[in-house]
């Protein structure tokens, strides 16, 4: 049986007059990445290539960006935008072979759609499905009636997908990972206008593009090297153990993206930022930076997103999301930022 085995929606934490809006460091690529990585946590096994089908135009830096995010080569295909394009892409993926992902952005609700089933579709954000082989007679498909209702629930999609499946050749399994973070954020963040700074050539500390790309496995996926000789972990990866200097005993491993513990925090006031962060400060004011312990003894220095001063403290547990860092040489650089780890919305579970 071929099935939608996992799904995730990413919805920005920011609101403007009650409507969800993207934060100043978010864009279609970062939102698609946040949804996509939630359904791609299982490491690839035998399949050398994965397929990512995008409803609409793949957000830049799509191909290379998705490949880096998923840790290996991907084929990216583009289709019609909107809900119709999403459904079409899902239908194609369900007829395909191997692991496929479907990503959609800007899925404006279609009020005229059939009201039979409910699914969480954000008008701002991204939705990603993983479609794969699923053993017949395994877990029964999830009863879609258990999906959460709320401001993002719109009618439609799954009823029509089921219509693609006469005889139940494929179905729905796994959790609906909403990442809605109900209730967040509070305070001034919630009403601050989400101005998106324009890309401009920055006078910043210069990380040449090849060095930026070289560091992405560690920066985006938290890949570290564990040394089988001395047991120590080197992060970010550098191809040599930071403790015993061996190069032939390293085993690459991805550290958890969420659940790190905050060891130290600071808040950079207006005027204290490096030049390349000027546009961000203009858009959203002072920002936080934290050192997070990803696992004992392994740390990352990360900017804070979606939280104001004092909202993240030492010993808090945080998640991480891919976000824009700053523009340089006319392009955006992306990296992980620490975000408050709030409860996800209700999950759909097997009936």
């Amino acid at each position, binding site marked *: 049986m071929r099935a939608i085995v996992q799904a995730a929606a990413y919805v920005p934490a920011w609101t403007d007059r009650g409507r969800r809006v993207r934060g100043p460091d978010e864009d279609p690529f970062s939102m698609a990445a946040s949804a996509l990585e939630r359904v791609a946590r299982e490491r690839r096994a035998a399949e050398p290539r994965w397929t990512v089908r995008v409803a609409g135009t793949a957000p830049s830096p799509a191909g290379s960006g998705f490949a880096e995010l998923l840790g290996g080569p991907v084929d990216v295909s583009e289709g019609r935008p909107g809900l119709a394009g999403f459904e079409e892409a899902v239908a194609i993926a369900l007829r395909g072979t191997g692991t496929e992902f479907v990503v959609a952005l800007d899925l404006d609700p279609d009020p005229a759609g059939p009201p039979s089933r409910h699914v969480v579709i954000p008008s701002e954000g991204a939705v990603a499905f993983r479609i794969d082989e699923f053993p017949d007679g395994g877990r029964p498909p999830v009863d879609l009636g258990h999906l959460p209702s709320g401001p993002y629930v719109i009618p439609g999609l799954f009823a029509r997908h089921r219509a693609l499946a006469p005889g139940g050749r494929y179905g729905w399994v796994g959790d609906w990972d909403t990442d809605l973070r109900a209730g967040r954020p509070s305070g001034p963040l919630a009403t601050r206008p989400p101005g998106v700074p324009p890309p401009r050539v920055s*006078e*910043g*500390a*210069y*990380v040449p593009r090849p*060095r*930026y790309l070289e*560091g992405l496995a560690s920066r985006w996926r938290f890949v570290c090297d564990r040394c089988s000789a001395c047991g120590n972990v080197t*992060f*970010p990866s550098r191809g040599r153990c*930071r403790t015993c200097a061996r190069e032939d005993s390293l085993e690459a491993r991805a550290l958890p993206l969420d659940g790190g513990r905050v*060891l*130290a*925090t*600071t*808040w*950079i*006031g207006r*005027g*204290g*930022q*490096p*030049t*390349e*962060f*000027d546009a*961000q400060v203009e858009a959203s004011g002072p*920002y936080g*930076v*934290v*050192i997070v312990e990803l696992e004992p*003894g392994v*740390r*990352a*220095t*990360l*900017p804070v997103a979606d939280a104001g*001063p004092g909202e993240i403290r*030492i010993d808090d547990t945080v998640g991480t999301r891919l976000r824009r*860092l*700053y523009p340089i040489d006319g392009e955006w*650089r992306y*990296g992980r930022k620490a975000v408050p780890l709030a409860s996800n919305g209700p999950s759909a579970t097997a009936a």
Partner: protein
Amino acid sequence: MVHRAAVVGGGHTRFGVLDEGPRALVRSAVDRALGSVDRGIDRRSIGLGYLATLGFGGWQIGNASALLGEEAGMPGLPSVRIENACASGGFALQAAVSSIQAGASEVVLVVGLEKMTDVSNARRRFWLGVSGDTEWERQAGLTFAGVYGLIADRYLKIHAVPREALATVAVKNHANGALNPNAHFQKRVTLDEALAAPRVADPLGLYDCCPVSDGAVALLLTSVELAPRFTDAPVYVDGIGASSDFLAVQERFDLTRFDATRRAAEAAFRSADTERGKISFVEAHDCFTIAELLALEDLGFAGRGEAGALTLSGATGRDGRLPVNPDGGLKAKGHPIGATGVSQAYEVFLQLRGSAGARQVPGARTALTHNVGGAGATSAVTIFSAG
């Protein structure tokens, strides 16, 4: 044979927001150093020059040492530029000591220089973070205030130290700076003022941070054997120690300890064959107030987490048990990046000759300088005694 090195002359410009450009600052510091030599010196006797500078603002990124000979009136002087960020001066001094020890030259000139206030605000904020880890810390939006802010946050929390300990460092160093005619800030501050100042990188406020300053300092070194040719009161370099650490703080094994300073201090004390109890005063690298607390612990003058209490007790004041930064430190005297390490040794030169004026530490016989690059990525510790 291995010679011992001695300092026989020193010149120091004012630190602060100055009209002079970098060339004029170098010329002024060198001329003052030459003029300070008790029995006089022929500038042609200088056989080697080291220039410590970051090249802030990009004014002369490459080949800057050539201007030493140009501006010092010694065309043809063999010269090298030493760059280890804020520790450039300390490392240039140690290079000069090693050159004397090796007999490479009879007299060596060391100049520390930075011109920081003649660039635009945007360019200054670009340059202030160039010596940290570029790929992680800088891309996270940190300059050094932010890196030290993170360290301070953790330090205050795990050792339950109040912010008053940080503010007390500022109050003490401003009080010392008020007695130093070369200091950038010659004005006392109160504890309340220091605590109430706006936050730059929480928990660090404005008074926890050193200023952006211009300035240059020059020292003349020779061997102990040749020193009497120039003065009856040389200052001997008894020991040097240096070390480095991971560039990014996140990779270190401890967030509130600078292992580079610990190793440099061990090496310096070993080579000087002396002990902590014999040090009359310390010139510590207090680019941020938290850095002076870390320095006291890493240099071995306080146990871990105890530097705050030591500072609050007044022990590090000018009349305390262990005076720290009698010249005002980076905090009040100013921090022209490449000049700082040389300036620390200049203060030692004055103090150990009993010529520090109103800020003289009574009976000072030995001293230690501690010069840190970045947030502990490089560290140079040097021990001196009165000749």
